[in-house]
């Protein structure tokens, strides 16, 4: 077991998400204090108790709505400490059938997966730069690599977020700011978001695998990670299918 990293803090944005909680567990196991931020954060008392009992680290709860842009500065400023690591697990995956038919649904999907997370990371990044250290971890998706009929509204929002993370990483690295950005493209994960879908077992990670992978990526300063290595191959293939063929596929 690693020695506890006493005095370090991680912020989880979208802390009701099982992926977000798994990341919290992975860092708590190494001694990080935990800030759980979510909508209706008061309902996360059981999750807070769970982390405190298992890992004996302090846990605080914070209210955040990614779509309340005007409140982003105040939210970050109101945290008990600017975290060393911030992870954004915020996202929605609406039904593609609804998104296709409704402008409102499409806009909500784009904002929840892209604009909200980008807004929060803008505030956090600038404060981390001012401090001179930090890591930002964005949970994006392989769905953003290439738009598919099955979920292109979600996918395009994630594509936007992925590009945002890549650009932010470039800016912070060039400026030698001490702040690092990790992009996570998890592939399928067995969570509430995918409940009821028939997912191939070999391609589907458990939330705990994502938690462990994020810990490793932050430790090693990795840039872009897939959780299960097989996704690297799958996406290599998908990227290289010519558009004339791709547009006729149902994948």
């Amino acid at each position, binding site marked *: 077991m690693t020695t506890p990293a006493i005095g370090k803090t991680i912020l989880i944005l979208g802390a009701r998400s099982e992926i977000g909680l798994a990341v919290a567990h992975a860092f708590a196991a190494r001694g990080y204090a935990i800030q759980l931020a979510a909508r209706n954060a008061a309902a996360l008392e*059981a*999750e807070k*108790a*769970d982390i405190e*009992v298992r890992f004996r680290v302090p846990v605080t709860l914070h209210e955040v709505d990614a779509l309340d842009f005007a409140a982003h500065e105040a939210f970050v400023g109101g945290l008990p400490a600017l975290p060393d690591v911030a992870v954004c697990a915020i996202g929605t995956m609406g039904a593609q059938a609804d998104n296709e038919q409704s402008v409102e649904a499409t806009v909500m999907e784009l904002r929840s997966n892209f604009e909200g997370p980008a807004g929060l990371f803008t505030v956090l990044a600038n404060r981390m730069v001012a401090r001179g250290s930090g890591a930002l971890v964005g949970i994006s998706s392989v769905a953003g690599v290439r738009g598919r009929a099955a979920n292109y509204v979600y996918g395009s929002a994630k594509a936007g977020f992925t590009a945002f993370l890549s650009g932010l990483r470039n800016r912070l690295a060039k400026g030698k700011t001490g702040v690092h950005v990790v992009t996570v493209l998890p592939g399928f994960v067995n969570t*509430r978001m995918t409940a009821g879908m028939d997912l191939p077992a070999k391609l589907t990670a458990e939330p705990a695998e994502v938690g462990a992978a994020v810990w490793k990526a932050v430790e090693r300063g990795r840039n872009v990670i897939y959780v299960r290595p097989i996704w690297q191959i799958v996406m290599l293939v998908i990227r290289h299918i010519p558009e004339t063929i791709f547009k006729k596929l149902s994948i």
Partner: protein
Amino acid sequence: MILSGWGRYPRLECAVSRPRDIAAAAALCAAGPVIARGNGRAYGDAALGVPATLDMRSLNRMLAFDDAAGVLVAEAGVTLAEVIDVFLPRGWFPAVTPGTRFVTLGGAIAADVHGKNHHKDGAFSSCVEWIELLGPDGAVRRVSLTEQPELFGWTCGGMGLTGVILRAAIRLRAVETGWIRQRATPAPGLKSAIELFEASAEATYSVAWIDCMAGGGSLGRSIVMLGEHATRAELGADQRADPFVRKRKRAKTVPFDFPQIALNSLSVRAFNQIYYGVGAWNAGESLIDFASYFYPLDALLEWNRIYGRSGFTQFQCVLPLAASFDGLTALLRAITKSGQGSFLAVLKRMGVQQSRFSFPMEGYTLALDFPIRRGTAALFGELERIVIDHGGRFYLAKDAFLSAQALRAADPRAADFATMRADTGTAPRFISALSERLQL
């Protein structure tokens, strides 16, 4: 979704949902008959609900720990593996544990599981301070030895048929280390194995492996294994560097469905190595880590695939003390003759058990695996008769074959259990394939 128990038989199409909080679990219960499912380690059909199965594994939060008393309050989906990971390094171990740590608290309570210390410490219910149970009316009740003790008694060992266990408080055992002092003694036959158990009532843990191929004068040839939690002072230099066994061997996964022969030859080899080798090991005494001692099979993930596609079942019965020798002799003869069982069976002395519908009784329990084949049901019929004739009973957490009649013949408590289910309104609300088969 097609579901099965650990034995992969039977497989049934079940509607499965995975509540993530208590409100969601309550809403699912209100919608129609359900059965709770933990980690699916019961062998047969106990955790299969065709109309609705509640996968409880997301209700897995630890809520409080009292480190003076060693009492953990947790949701029902927490597994003993998690309890060990968190609390062994702080000097606590489950007070009662079955032969796999991949069971949930809900499953351990519902089957009132027993461990190698049953003769001394009783079944899992003996370490349960209270349970929060979601009943047929949607209300959550706290039940314990003092609050609604009747319902508490029926729920421990009630196989999920009294309601959904949401949370529980369990008492852990203080230990100085994660190591076990084991003493293995070969017993050339059943009589000497029983004598060894009877002489070892003071041992914290006791269990025996029986060689099921040995007939005639060697019938019941076994290795009796006793264990104690090692103190710090008893550790050697190697173990002292890692008193709570944080460095674990990595578990391996069985990659594909396995031919039966491979398994039998593996276990034959392991048995013989110990049986003939014990003399050489320091009078049979050794220090082994808790995982190898309690959970040897957990090191091989998905080992149930070893039995191949058609699945397997486990036969486990308990016989009252006075009838144990005769009953076990008859069972072992029938098994040896059939040539169908796995090579090894597990024998264990059980202590007195008070609860309403739990499996254990004072006497001897025998458990062994059978691959599902054409003759399996017939052999089980024969074993059932022997058990009933000797006043024994069957473990529902392992069973997939028993008939409602055989259950009632073996266990007069079954009729009371069914009456309780009718009277409390639980019968139409909590339904599993097992409750239908056994008409509970």
